[in-house]
C-alpha cells in the first residue's frame, strides 16, 4: 500500500542529492571573511538575554565592516548533544570562533573544544576553560545593586518580587547584590525569590511573578530572559525593574530601569583578536568601568530621590570606593558569612550558594 510513498521519497532524495552535489561549489567561502558562531538559548528576539547578545553581535559585525560573517543558532537546549551538534554544524560551515551564551552549554562546549582544537570557543558565564576555550562575563551585580536602590526606594509594602531562573552562583550573586542595594536605602524591605527553573518560558515566568505579587510584592525584578514578569506587574498595576534590555518603550507603564548588558565592545575586541591571531583563552569578567554592564536611564516612574542616590553609588562603584560584597554580610539564618570590612574573593563569588539576610526564599 505505502510502497509507492517509500519509493517516491527515496526517488526524491536521490534527485535532490544529485542536484545538491552539482551545486555544492556555490557556497565557497572567501578567504578574507572570518566566520563567527553564536549559540543562543532562546530566540534572538526574546526581548532579553539572547537579544542582548544578538544586539552585541550585530554591532560587532557593523564595527568589523565586512570582515566578519556570523552564524546564529537560536533555541538551542541546554543539553550536551544539542550543543555539540550545533557546534559541529558551525565548524562544518567554517566558523573559527564560537560564542556560547548560556551557562548550561558548558558540557557541550568543553566537549566540542576537545573535538575541534583549532577552533576558538568562548563560553559566557561558565567556569570551565581549556587552551581553546575561554569564558567571558560581566559584573552584572554592579548595576543590579543600583537597581536595588531604585526598588528599595519604590516599595511601599516593603516586599519586592524577584523572579529568577536557576539557583546557580551567577543568579544568586545577582539576587544578593540587588538585595544589598535595597538594604542600603530601605533596611526593612525584603526581596522575595521565586525559581522558574527556566531561562526563557514566558508562561512560567509570568505565573511566578503573579504569585509573588499576590503575596504583597509591589515591585518586581527578574533574572529571566523574557518580559513576562513585567507583563504580570503591568496587569497588577505594579512597577518593575527589567533585565538585559531596556524596556522603556515596550513596557512604559511599569518599567523604571534595568541592569543591562552591552556585549558589542567585548565581541568586537574578541573577534578582532582572533583575526589578529592574538586570541588567548582567558576568563574575562568586566564591570561597569568596562562598559559591558550598565544601568539603564531611570524613567519617570522611578522615585524622584532615586536618581541622586543611584548617581552617588555609581560613582562609588566606578571609583572602586564601593565594593558591593564587603562585610559585614549575614546569611538568612543571621550567621555572619563575611566579617566586617572583608571583601569577598572572586572564588567565593563564583561559587556563591547563600542568600543575604533580607532575601526571602529557599535556595532550591
Amino acid at each position, binding site marked *: 500500500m505505502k510502497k*509507492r510513498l517509500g519509493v517516491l521519497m527515496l526517488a526524491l532524495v536521490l534527485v535532490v542529492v544529485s542536484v545538491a552535489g552539482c*551545486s555544492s561549489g556555490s557556497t565557497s567561502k572567501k578567504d578574507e571573511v572570518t566566520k563567527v558562531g553564536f549559540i543562543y538559548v532562546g530566540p534572538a528576539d526574546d526581548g532579553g538575554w539572547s537579544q542582548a547578545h544578538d544586539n552585541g553581535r550585530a554591532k560587532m559585525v557593523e564595527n568589523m565592516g565586512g570582515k566578519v560573517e556570523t552564524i546564529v543558532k537560536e533555541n538551542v537546549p541546554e543539553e550536551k548533544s544539542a550543543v555539540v551538534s550545533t557546534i559541529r554544524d558551525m565548524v562544518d560551515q567554517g566558523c573559527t570562533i564560537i560564542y556560547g551564551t548560556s551557562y548550561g552549554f558548558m558540557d557541550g562546549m568543553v566537549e566540542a573544544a576537545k573535538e575541534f582544537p583549532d577552533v576558538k570557543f568562548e563560553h559566557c558565564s561558565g567556569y570551565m576553560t581549556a587552551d581553546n576555550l575561554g569564558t567571558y562575563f560581566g559584573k552584572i551585580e554592579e548595576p543590579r545593586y543600583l537597581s536595588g536602590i531604585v526598588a528599595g526606594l519604590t516599595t511601599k509594602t516593603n516586599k519586592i518580587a524577584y523572579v529568577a531562573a536557576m539557583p546557580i552562583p551567577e543568579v544568586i550573586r545577582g539576587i544578593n547584590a540587588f538585595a544589598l542595594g535595597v538594604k542600603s536605602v530601605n533596611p526593612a524591605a525584603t526581596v522575595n525569590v521565586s525559581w522558574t527553573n527556566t531561562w526563557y518560558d514566558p508562561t512560567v515566568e509570568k505565573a511566578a511573578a503573579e504569585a509573588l505579587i499576590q503575596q504583597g510584592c509591589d515591585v518586581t525584578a527578574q533574572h529571566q530572559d523574557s518580559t513576562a514578569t513585567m507583563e504580570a506587574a503591568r496587569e497588577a498595576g505594579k512597577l518593575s525593574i527589567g533585565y538585559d534590555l531596556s524596556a522603556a518603550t515596550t513596557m512604559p507603564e511599569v518599567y523604571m530601569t534595568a541592569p543591562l548588558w552591552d556585549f558589542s565592545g567585548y565581541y568586537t575586541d574578541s573577534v578582532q583578536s582572533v583575526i589578529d591571531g592574538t586570541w588567548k583563552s582567558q576568563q574575562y569578567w568586566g564591570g561597569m568601568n568596562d562598559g559591558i554592564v550598565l544601568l539603564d536611564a531611570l524613567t519617570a516612574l522611578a522615585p524622584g530621590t532615586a536618581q541622586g542616590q543611584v548617581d552617588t553609588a555609581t560613582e562609588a562603584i566606578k571609583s572602586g570606593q564601593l565594593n558591593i560584597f564587603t562585610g559585614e554580610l549575614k546569611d538568612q539564618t543571621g550567621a555572619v558569612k563575611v566579617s566586617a570590612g572583608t571583601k569577598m574573593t572572586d572564588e567565593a563569588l563564583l561559587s556563591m550558594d547563600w542568600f543575604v539576610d533580607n532575601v526571602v526564599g529557599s535556595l532550591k
Partner: protein
Amino acid sequence: MLHIVKKDVPKNREKIVVRLSAVLAALAVASIIVLVAGANPIELYIGIFQGCFGSVYRFSATIEKMVPLLVLSLGVMVAFKMRFWNIGAEGQFQMGAVGTTLVVRLLPDLPLPIMLVLMIVASFAFGAVWLMIPAFFKARFGTNETLFTLMLNYIALTLVTALQYDFWKDPAANGMPKIANLPENALLPSVSGFNLSILMAVVIILAMYYFTNRSKIGFEIAVLGESENTARYIGINVTKTIIIAALVSGGLCGIVGMMQTTGVSGALSTEITGGLGFTAIIVAWLSGLKVPFVVVNSFAFAVLLQGASYIQTAFQIPGSVAEMIQAIILFFILGSEFVLQYRFVSDKTKSEVA
C-alpha cells in the same frame, strides 16, 4: 452541503501523482515563507540536501538523527499494528533513559561491555513497564490507551524533572540543575561520528522484520489489530497478546533512551527526547506500519530534521521559519493521505447516487 465520503482503494498511478503533487505544493507554499524570510527558496531547498549529504560529518549527523527516530517508530509500529494507540513513546523513551542512568548510578564501576548489556536490559525493562501499565488497564478494564499513554508522558517528564532538579542533581555543577555526565565506561563507543547505536539499530530492524512478518506473536498482533472478534474466534489469548505487544513496543522506545543517553547526550535530562517520540508516530503511520518503509521514512524525516537545522545556520533564517517549512511539508504529505482516501460529495450528487 458537502459530505466527506470514503473512496475506493486508489490506483497506484493516482497515489504517485497525488503524493508527488503534495510534495511540490508543499515546497511551493513553503517558498512564500522562505521569500518573506529573505532567502532564495531554490537555494534553500538545495541547502537542505547539502546539509544532509554534503560531507561525512553532515551525513553522520543525519544518521544520528535517524537512529532514535527509526527505533522509536518501530516501537510505535508494533503497538499500532494492534490498533493500540501508543502515544507514549516520548515517556517510554525518557523512562528508558532513567533506567540507563540508574544502572550507572548503582554500579558505576562495571567494565564497558557488561555496562552496555545491563543498560540495554534496564532501558528495555523501564520502557516496557511504562507501556505495560496502560496495556494492563486496557486489557483488564478496557481503559482508553490513547489518553493513558499520553498522560504517562507527562508523568515521565515530571519524574525526570524531579531527578534532574533534585534527587540526582549533580552536586559538582554549581547549582546548575543537571544530572552528572555518564563516566567513560558507560558511553557507547563511536567511530568518526557514527556510534554503536547504528549497529544496534540494524539488529533491531532485522529483529523487528522477523517479529512482524515471520513470528507467531507478530502474526497474532496483526490479527488482533485487524479484528478482536476474529482473534477471539481463532483462539488468540487477547490479554496475553496485548501485554506482549506492549512489552516489545515500550521496550524498543525504552532502548532509544539508552542509545541517546550513552551515545549522544552523555547524561539524562528533560531535553533528551527532543519530541522525537511524537514524530515517530507520524513516521510509523506514514509507513503503513511496515518495517522497510519505516526505515525509509525515518531516513526521510531525519533529512528534514537535519536539513532544517542546517539551513538555519547556513542561511541564517530564523529557527521558526525552518520549523514552518518542516511543518508545511508534513502537513501536505498527511493531507495527501486524506485526499487519497476520501472525496467530497455534494448533497445533490449524493441523492442521485443513493
